[in-house]
């Protein structure tokens, strides 16, 4: 299909691609630039700041007028705890589905597949009522608590991730676990000491996927978290800009830039463990 380019064809292609690149990266340039501009208002912002400043970052992080650091901490905390538990819970379930044969296994697996077709956020009304009721008996897990929010997330992350994890477990030969069992290990020991180190890449993958989706969740977090000191970044950032939008633009921009950082951090860390997980040798049959 492809042939050598004529002069015109070459210009045309690069022209189109440059246009696409401009479309793709302009919002990033614009928001990064805004965060370094002296002016707070978007009206007077210039793409290349004449006198770049870190003032907006300083105000956001130190002035205490906005609970930005609290939101950031809440987001990171909720996402980290949720992802850790999701990895643990799905690993247990996936191990059972992958290694044992029992009644209800097929129904369970297909059921999981069907359940994950329905996004949890569709049941937002019920989750709201459920959390209201739960709060009456267990105040630490009711409305406006991180525990309640995390419990909701844990349920929603089960279906798809269990399938993903089970598929990976299936590719690991059982012989290592079998030989450990011969040496007297319990199935749980075989699981934690033999299998888990071998499946680190998929554990990392699920951790990252969960972290990203929880970190970006707006809908459920906005329903559950009602006071400013409990809110997460997506909920808080929106509040930060919804009032006097034009005038607090630079602050919002600085907040947006910072909130992308945990994202990158998790990505870099996970990439390392992905690579090291992949290069470890397993048993070959």
């Amino acid at each position, binding site marked *: *299909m*492809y042939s050598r380019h004529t002069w015109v064809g070459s210009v045309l*292609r690069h022209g189109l*691609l440059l246009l*696409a*690149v401009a479309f*793709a*990266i302009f*919002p*990033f340039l*614009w928001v990064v630039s805004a965060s370094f501009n002296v002016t707070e208002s*978007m*009206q007077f912002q210039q793409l290349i700041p004449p006198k770049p400043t870190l003032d907006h970052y300083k105000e956001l992080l130190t002035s205490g007028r906005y609970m930005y650091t609290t939101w950031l901490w809440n987001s990171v905390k909720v996402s980290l705890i949720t992802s850790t538990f999701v990895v*643990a*819970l799905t690993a*247990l379930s996936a*191990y*059972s589905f992958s290694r*044992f044969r029992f009644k209800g*296994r097929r129904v*369970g*697996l*297909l059921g999981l*597949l069907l359940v994950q*077709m*329905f*996004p*949890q*956020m*569709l*049941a*937002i*009304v*019920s989750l*709201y*009522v*459920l959390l*209201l009721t739960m709060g*009456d*008996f267990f105040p630490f897990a009711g409305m406006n608590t991180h525990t309640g929010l995390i419990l909701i997330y*844990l*349920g*929603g992350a*089960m*279906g798809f991730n*269990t399938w993903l994890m089970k598929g990976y477990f299936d590719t690991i030969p059982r012989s290592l676990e079998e030989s450990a069992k011969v040496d*007297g290990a319990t199935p749980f020991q075989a699981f934690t000491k033999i299998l888990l180190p071998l499946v680190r890449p998929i554990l990392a993958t699920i951790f990252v996927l969960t972290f*990203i989706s929880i970190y970006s969740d*707006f*809908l459920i977090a906005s329903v559950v978290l009602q006071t400013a000191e409990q809110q997460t970044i*997506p909920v808080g*950032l929106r509040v930060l*800009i919804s009032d006097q*939008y*034009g005038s607090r*633009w630079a602050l919002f*921009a600085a907040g*947006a830039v910072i909130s*992308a950082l945990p*994202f990158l951090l998790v990505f870099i860390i996970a990439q390392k463990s992905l690579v090291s997980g992949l290069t470890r040798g397993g048993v070959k049959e």
Partner: protein
Amino acid sequence: MRDSFLLRHSVKILGLGILAALAIYASSSLLVSGSYVLAALPILAAGLITYIFLSPRRYPIRWLVPGLLFLFVMVLYPIGYTFVGSLTDLGTGHMLSKEQAIEQILGRTYTPPGAERYAYLAFQGSSGDLVFLLAGRETLLITDGKATPIALPDERFVDDDGDGRFDRYGDSRRLETREIIALLPTLQKLAVPYAGLTLGLDSLTEFEAQAPKYAYDEATETMTDLETGKAYTAIEGIFTSPNGEEIYPGYRVWIGLANYVRLFTSTAISGPFARVFLWTVAFALLSVLLTFALGLGLAVLLNDPHLRARTVYRVLVILPYAIPSFMTILVWRGMLNQNFGVINQALVSLFGAGARVPWLADAWVAKAACILVNLWLGYPYMMIVALGALQSIPHELYEASRVDGASRWQQFRKITLPMLLMPLAPLLVGSFAFNFNNFNLIYLLTGGTPPVPGAQTPAGATDILLSYTYRLSFEGDRGNQLGLASAVSVIIFIVIATISAINFRMTGTLEELSKNV
């Protein structure tokens, strides 16, 4: 070996014991609050889990218990509750069960004329428990929420400084006025039954004997106001007097399919609902088509081995995919700001003040803006999958067709497109389902605005079904219409189920999976 066996088993028994205790606590609290059906659930669940952990035959299920528990409580139960809730009038003023509402109403009191009043002293022990000494026509002692007559002097009350006021009750110390003020929120909730009346705090310095305000007659479902003598009968989940006064809170009642009937027939609701429904479908469809078109176009360009710097291009155009979307959507919202946004500023400086576009204010322009931003967010994904699929098309096909004299465009239409659509079709259907519920985009970009004039429910021009549900539930100016919102959710469920069924049928996923699981 023996030791670890013992240890493991004692841990297991201990864990199951704690579980049983928790279940009994949850059940008894549910019983007390009048939820008789729900109260059975914790006990049943705990029993089932205990069985699974003690029966060797159920060993594989033990591994599933933690995950399944969350799945049941946080996914399956809410889905079921949504279906049930859509058949009720659940919403502001109708949140409680009938028993709970009656209990709350019966707890209310009023001050009958000539009510007995008491001066009081309050004492607080180190553990925080409160004791009151009331002096009126008779002298009363209130401990643990119970009132008993008491004769003074009593050796438990001690006057240390001899000023005629007691300073201690046993170990409890008398509270100063400022301490009482600090405790007011708690004290105002005090309701101590005594001699058929209720003792409650009336002012900072006085208790008062109050009478129950309402009496309930189960047989006729009538609530009688004992102060005024007025009778309120239960009408549509709320106690209502003949001339229309209502006692809040109401309670939820079954209304059958009334919510669905309203969605489809009541003109003030069905009009906006139909609009929202059509726009949801159009939005999802256009999003898929446009992101696919742009993604495929870029993939074809970038797949060209003769292109220079194509890795650089590839990394740059994938960028929108790499940053959390909630953030970039808000950035776009800023850029599209009508007065100060960079896009309008650029247009104005190029074409003059008349070129200002009402990006988020005009219904049609706002719709276009939603699709534009979604295009920006979505095309990198399509480009990635298209690049993968392009590489799997065998080269011979192109060479053979060139020998036969096919043009570049014919090659694309007759070879590339059909060969791509086969593997990508399920992804396109999946993308449709995703955009059908793309709440973040709509809510963060436009919040559903601009509003549709004359709508009885909060339905905006860019609202999709899910954001409409959200606004019905949590942002209605006539209270939260949770029952109606649940009905909308159920309709989304049905649409998604249909899409998934088509997807499964197309790909044969289910058949393949049933063979291989």
